[in-house]
């Protein structure tokens, strides 16, 4: 089926911020393909595919299939991410590298693949989901912080490379958002953390999706290489 709706790919779309982004694009009328390990996720009009993003061949096959089915790729949201929190002295090399593999290297892989298509189209939008943890460096998150900070530099390098082709690459840095990932902190720690947020509460996934859809819109054509905090003020001054 070919039509003139935008083709949007969201990684990590099975839940949390990724699911909220996929739903927000679908509500706008975009054709949305969600990639995640499970291939699950909300939204009847969203195609959810099971893809292991740490497997280069699987990523290639998925993008081949997307390009064959839809012919174009307008928006990529590189959102898939995991945590394996542990104090550094107790953190295994595997815990470190597996978080880097999923959060940073797999993002490189999908962004590279998307850019090949977007460069030819001479248009495209990529939004990378980093984290406030990239610059706050929370204890127990040496691996996660490294991966999320790495995304910022990587996105900016790529943004410079392709800016002349009407392709923008921006980063969002969510703070404390009410998702499965943050609920693993436990209610007590979350309540404590929420007190540190100037807004006085956790953010909702749709509040991140609203910024992501804007950065992916035609209206954001002159915004590239930006890091946009979505954190209720928690990261102000960082």
């Amino acid at each position, binding site marked *: 089926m070919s039509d003139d709706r935008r083709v949007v790919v969201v990684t990590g779309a099975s839940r949390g911020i990724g699911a909220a982004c996929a739903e927000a694009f679908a509500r706008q009328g975009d054709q949305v393909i969600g990639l995640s390990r499970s291939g699950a996720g909300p939204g009847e009009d969203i195609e959810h595919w099971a893809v292991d993003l740490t497997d280069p061949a699987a990523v290639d096959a998925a993008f081949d299939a997307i390009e064959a089915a839809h012919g174009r790729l307008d928006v990529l949201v590189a959102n898939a991410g995991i945590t394996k929190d542990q104090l550094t002295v107790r953190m295994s090399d595997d815990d470190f590298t597996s978080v880097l593999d999923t959060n940073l290297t797999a993002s490189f892989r999908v962004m590279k693949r998307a850019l*090949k298509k977007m*460069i*030819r189209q001479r248009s495209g939008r990529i939004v990378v989901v980093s984290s406030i943890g990239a610059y706050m460096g929370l204890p127990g998150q040496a691996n996660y912080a490294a991966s999320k900070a790495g995304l910022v530099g990587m996105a900016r390098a790529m943004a410079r*490379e*392709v800016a*002349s*082709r009407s392709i923008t690459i921006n980063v969002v840095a969510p703070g404390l958002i009410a998702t499965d990932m943050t609920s693993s902190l436990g209610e007590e720690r979350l309540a404590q953390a929420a007190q540190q947020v100037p807004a006085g509460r956790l953010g909702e996934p749709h509040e991140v999706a609203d910024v992501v859809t804007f950065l992916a819109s035609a209206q954001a054509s002159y915004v590239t290489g930006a890091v946009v905090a979505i954190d209720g003020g928690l990261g102000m001054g960082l």
Partner: protein
Amino acid sequence: MSDANFEKFKTCAVEVLQVDESAVVPDARFADDLDADSLDLVELVMALEESFDITVEENELEGVETIGQAYELVTSKL
């Protein structure tokens, strides 16, 4: 120089570099004559790889500065 292959090469160059067909001559230099930046060249390589069903390694591109040199590289792989 096989005409059919050069025509195919020219089609790729015209499309990717957005230049006039008459500008795609063996002596034309990518940077000076065709106003091609590094991303244009990468795009051209990708298009040639697809069109001729070949693979070009990064190190093979060193010193390739003209249409003629690029065409020679492509045909050496056919």
